[in-house]
């Protein structure tokens, strides 16, 4: 069984590092819709993928991945919203873990919105 002793060891290691970053206004927020509609259409793997990639690539001081409830566009779930400081919000719809990785690379790292996955590119009825 995994024990709390290991957690104590991790804490010791972390306390010797420079203190944690504060969430400042230069932070990009990535928000995944995790209400019934989101979860039922596959938001959990999208969230897991995004937060995993952000950690893997050491982007946690620039990008925070969080979750939210239903924003009323259930038919477009899983939805990922990207809020970059000083820029209009970008809403990505019908996301998958693969699309999420593409958004991370092209938009969050590369700086170019992946237009074809956005709500504004969708044929709204």
């Amino acid at each position, binding site marked *: 069984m995994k024990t709390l002793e290991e957690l104590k060891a991790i804490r010791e290691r972390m*306390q010797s590092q420079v203190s944690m970053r504060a969430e400042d206004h230069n932070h990009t927020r990535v928000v995944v819709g995790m209400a019934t*509609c989101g*979860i*039922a259409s596959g938001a*959990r793997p999208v969230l*897991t993928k995004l937060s995993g990639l952000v*950690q893997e690539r050491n982007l946690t001081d620039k990008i925070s991945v969080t*979750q939210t409830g239903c924003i009323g566009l259930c038919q477009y779930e899983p939805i990922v919203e990207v809020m970059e400081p000083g820029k209009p919000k970008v809403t990505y719809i019908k996301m998958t873990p693969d699309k999420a990785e593409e958004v991370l690379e092209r938009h969050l790292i590369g700086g170019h919105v992946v237009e074809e996955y956005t709500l504004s590119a969708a044929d709204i009825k």
Partner: protein
Amino acid sequence: MPEISLNVLDVAENSTRAGASLVTITIDADFTSDRLSIVIDDNGCGMTPQQVEQVTDPFFTSRTTRKVGLGVPFFKLAAESTGGSFTIRSEPGVGTTVTAVFVLSHIDRMPLGDINTTIHTLVIYHPDTDFVYRYRYNDRSFTLDTREFRQVLGDIPFASPEISAYIMDYLSENKLETDGGAQY
């Protein structure tokens, strides 16, 4: 929903939304009695008897973003369609307990699914809520208690990469030791 664990994620979300400071999730798979019991218990704002009655109605929700509320009805249907049961006990100001019992061997029972990721997601994305997670498989069990983690960690956030990884390892290693990697 293709997995029971996604129902748990969804319904436990209601507890955090109800302002609970402590959410206790119990998964109890007992193959002798052929039952899988899931209990989600919180100390949130609770519901009036009238609200409890409405909450299993798919066309009732307290939300304003849409007119349906499917989370609880999905969970109820999933349990009842296996010959199991579904109950909600709630009291305003005290909290809510949701209990779903599944018949393990029933053909319509969906798999438990990735319960580790569900618990991990709940813990990491609700830094202000404490979770107690009890997992029992026949006569073996383990418990995760975020209050214990918090005591060790002080103000180091659960979401920091090292801690997040530890919590995931804690869940997967202890689950494996408890159920021997059983898929059900």
